[in-house]
């Protein structure tokens, strides 16, 4: 830090007054602020024979699923394209920081890689910024594109109707529960709650009868980032209405929905979980690395009763992943998340997923698409879905018994695709999502009542969406 005088403070103390340290120190302070903005890496320029691929590396060092898979693709690609080299530019960061780092790279041709891994959560925002290249000319000539299911294709479509990414799978969400804990609490091994109250009742039973474990985990608050919004809040919110209309965004008027009862009810659920101490200790829940602990410690060690979480959990427990836990399918049960009062369609799931996209400032876009094609041969795609516990977005893979039987749970989560929801991932969405996390955090810590938290969400929503808000 430039403001910290490092050189011989004793002498400095004697002379600084006369030399007026204020100005340089203040300048340095601003520079520190400005420096973080410009944060430029040393651009090496673009070599036509080197393909640079950026992806999100796990912050858990023992998890190498993506690294292993990509290393294999690199081998295939370099063999099939003599003279071409693949260079990986992994970004090792939690989700929320991955986006920031990636966006900074995408801003400049010097740092933009040739291929990037984009979360569908932010893809529309990055499309609007002009960071990504439309892939339609490539897709038109690629016969495998026909194998992708339509909802998945839509996930990477911009508001201009062009497609900006090739999805490499999707995900769904549900309730994971520990059969051991359920047994001790006198709950059935084939548990399937019908309403929110059923979920809370099960958690209460665990709290009463199985001391020392966390009854129910619902991700919450800003530290958890999008996990809080999607695995937590939206899994509740999308179960509050008739199951077909979007409770966050009104497509007809193109406005975001404020002041809805469903929103308050979903917040009320979160409040109940933390107020009644059915969830993790609040200070744990607000620890940014809590997700890693849930997968790595709490579930495998039998310390968590019910976990509202994504379909990808087993990727951490597969062989070679660092936390092998092959018995998980005997130890854990799966139930779909019910709607609020059990109204149709009875279950809720949210879907997202990631896509491979080519930055607008990429030096080698053609080569990048060749790499995508290599990744998306049926065999490679199938290998990837199985490796990362992903849900297939290719019809040929979804129909393949080798995929369906590869892992326990795949069928359960693939069946949820029929009743799943996609987020309104428009450019304002990341800010809306932060506003949701703030509201959740308020009721989690008990700082705000449900009413107050919902009210401040409405205000935040207005400023985040430039007033494009509708009361419903």
């Amino acid at each position, binding site marked *: 830090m430039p403001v910290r005088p490092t050189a011989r403070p004793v002498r400095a103390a004697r002379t600084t*007054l006369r030399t007026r340290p204020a100005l340089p120190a*203040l300048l340095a302070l*601003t520079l520190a602020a400005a420096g973080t903005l410009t944060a430029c890496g040393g651009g090496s320029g673009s070599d036509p024979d080197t393909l640079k691929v950026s992806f999100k590396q796990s912050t858990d060092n023992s998890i190498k699923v993506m690294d292993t898979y990509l290393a294999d693709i690199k081998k295939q690609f370099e063999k099939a394209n003599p003279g071409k080299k693949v260079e990986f530019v992994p970004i090792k960061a939690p989700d929320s920081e991955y986006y920031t780092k990636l966006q900074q790279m995408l801003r400049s041709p010097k740092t933009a890689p040739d291929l990037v891994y984009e979360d569908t959560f932010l893809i529309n925002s990055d499309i609007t910024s002009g*960071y990504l290249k439309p892939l339609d000319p490539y897709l038109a000539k690629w016969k495998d594109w026909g194998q992708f299911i339509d909802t998945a294709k839509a996930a990477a479509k911009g508001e201009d109707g062009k497609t900006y990414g090739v999805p490499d799978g999707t995900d769904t969400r549900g309730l994971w529960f520990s059969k051991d804990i359920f047994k001790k609490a006198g709950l059935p091994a084939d548990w399937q709650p019908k309403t929110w109250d059923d979920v809370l009742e099960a958690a209460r039973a665990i709290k009463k009868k199985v001391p020392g474990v966390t009854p129910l985990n619902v991700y919450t608050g800003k530290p958890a980032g999008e996990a809080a919004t999607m695995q937590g809040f939206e899994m509740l919110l999308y179960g509050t209405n008739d199951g077909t209309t979007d409770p966050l965004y009104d497509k007809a008027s193109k406005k975001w929905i404020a002041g809805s009862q469903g929103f308050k009810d979903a917040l009320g659920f979160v409040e109940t979980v933390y107020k009644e101490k059915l969830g993790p200790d609040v*200070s744990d829940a607000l620890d940014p690395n809590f997700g890693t602990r849930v997968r790595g410690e709490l579930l495998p060690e039998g310390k968590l009763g019910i976990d509202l979480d994504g379909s990808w959990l087993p990727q951490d427990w597969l062989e070679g992943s660092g936390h092998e836990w092959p018995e998980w399918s005997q130890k854990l049960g799966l139930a779909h998340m019910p709607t609020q009062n059990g109204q149709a369609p009875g279950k809720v799931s949210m879907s997202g997923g990631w896509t491979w996209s080519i930055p607008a400032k990429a030096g080698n876009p053609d080569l990048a698409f060749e790499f995508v094609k290599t990744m998306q041969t049926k065999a490679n795609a199938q290998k990837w879905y199985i490796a990362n516990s992903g849900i297939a977005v290719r019809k040929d893979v979804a129909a393949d018994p080798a995929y369906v039987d590869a892992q326990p749970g795949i069928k359960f989560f693939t069946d949820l695709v029929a009743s799943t929801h996609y987020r309104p991932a428009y450019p304002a969405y*990341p800010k809306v999502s932060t506003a949701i996390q703030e509201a959740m955090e308020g009721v989690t810590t008990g700082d705000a009542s449900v009413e107050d938290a919902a009210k401040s969400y409405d205000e935040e929503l207005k400023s985040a969406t430039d007033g494009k808000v509708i009361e419903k």
Partner: protein
Amino acid sequence: MKTATGPGLAKRPGRAPAPATPGTRPRHVPFLRALPVTPAVVLLLLFLAGPIAYCAYIAFTDLQLTGQAEDSFVGLDNFRAAFDDEAFRNAVWLTLVFTVISALLGQNTLGLALAALMQRASKPVRTLVGAVVITAWVLPEVVAGFLLYAFFRREGTLNAILDWLHLPTQNWLFTLPILAVSFANVWRGTAFSMLVYSAALNEIPKEITEAAEVDGAGGWRRMWHITLPMIRRSIGTNLMLITLQTLSVFGLIWVMTRGGPGGKSQTLPLFMYEEAFQKSMIGYGTAVALLLLVVGSLFSVVYLRLLRTEV
């Protein structure tokens, strides 16, 4: 910065160096003398003033990291939005609390006390205390943050001690976050004040203290009437430097609490980071950075004023 004036002129701090009386010194000499520093000035302008100017410019735009095709000039909107924003006002308040508790009260007084006590201590004690305090200062901010996180967390050292003493325990980072991070900053930053004051105390001529002692002045009176007035300048310098350091503390708080829970330890640098990089609003975040700069300048002006009138 050293100005290219003769040594005689530097004796009047706080005033612009008066131009030499015409006739006694030819006018062009200062320019010639300034020549050697020109490269440094150019570099400063390029690498210091350049980014600052750019920074000041984007504070007046609605530049975003993502979600926008073009940015535009929005005038004072960002500043208006900041003052309307309750979270911003909360961050300003917490920044002041953090600075006053950890820099002005904590680091400053503790540093002075340590320095004064060490004057009288035997050499081994002095070396040992000095080494311990300076180790805390030398540790990188993030490492210090992790250490104090481990100290304050629910299963942490502090609670282990309290438990052993049969006192109630709590998750300090959750119940008293701003105090916990303030303590961390005191722990980390006291060494600097201690060094400054040790140097200043060593400069006080022995005869004066001895004379006071002969006149019958006790320890406190000597401190109040002799020591403090004599090290006044060092106090001012020290206060200014540690205030500026403390205003920009980021890593320590980020590691310990991330500004939470619920914004209860979110000082301005953390607020700025969140707005700029997590919500992608670079323009707004930069405007907040400029406001932080204003807070820093206000403190500096106050210190300079206090000192100037007394010199």
